[in-house]
């Protein structure tokens, strides 16, 4: 991102696929394209920088923090992070601090609407960390067991599960 802005034309060089060199006569005319620098990981994460995000990790954890830095792999630095545990109709927040998350572990990240900041829908109530943590642990163990037996049954039919026995929430 060498200080390109979204209105600059793309860099010279080989045309991106979908645009055809002029000798391709008889081909359909190229679709007008938006500038290519709009379609990079960097451009997507750039406008999320310094925003409060909810990051869902592949292991089911939910982190809420301010995005301070990132790179093209989706590695993230989160500041003033809390982890929010949900179980049944309860939730609890645990202060975690500064995070460097390796990109491969990120499943999804969302910008928190500041008008709805920290809004958790009605049936969910904030509860004690210890209580929620204990319930969570029990539920995880239960899910793991269920998942294991499911994978076993699928394996008997020759299927290989996507999450390899690891419960993902």
């Amino acid at each position: 991102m060498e200080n390109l802005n979204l209105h600059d034309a793309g860099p010279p060089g080989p045309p991106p696929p979908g645009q055809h060199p002029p000798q391709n006569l008889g081909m359909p005319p190229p679709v007008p394209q938006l500038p290519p620098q709009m379609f990079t990981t960097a451009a997507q994460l750039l406008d999320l920088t310094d925003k409060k995000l909810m990051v869902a990790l592949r292991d089911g954890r939910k982190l809420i923090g301010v995005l301070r830095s990132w790179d093209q792999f989706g590695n993230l630095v989160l500041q003033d992070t809390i982890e929010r545990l949900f179980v049944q109709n309860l939730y609890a927040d645990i202060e975690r601090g500064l995070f460097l998350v390796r990109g491969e572990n990120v499943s999804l990240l969302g910008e928190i609407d500041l008008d709805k900041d920290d809004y958790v829908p009605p049936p969910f109530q904030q509860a004690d960390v210890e209580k929620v943590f204990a319930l969570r642990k029990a539920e995880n163990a239960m899910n793991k067991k269920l998942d294991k037996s499911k994978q076993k049954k699928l394996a008997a039919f020759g299927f290989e599960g996507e999450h390899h026995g690891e419960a993902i929430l």
Partner: protein
Amino acid sequence: MLFFSFFKTLVNHEVTVELKNDISVRGTLKSVDQYLNIKLDDISVVEEMKYPHLSSVKNVFIRGSVVRYVHLPANAVDTPLLEDATRREASQAASKAKQSSS
């Protein structure tokens, strides 16, 4: 690169992205990159009560590697053009392979 270009033509259309952890997120496709990471705006989550952590979120960046399906609006897809592009890409790949072997 064909699917990357294809998704670029779907920008500003409503799509539903189903993730490998069974969450389905519907929203306006805002951006896509070479890894097929997807950015959606004005999202709504199917079975929202199951995923309370998404209720205060307005736009999401979804990592390409966790996507299972993208449900597309049928009227936004030009199937003949896509078929053409696929053949063109296949023939380009074939001629490239021939060049490198000779």
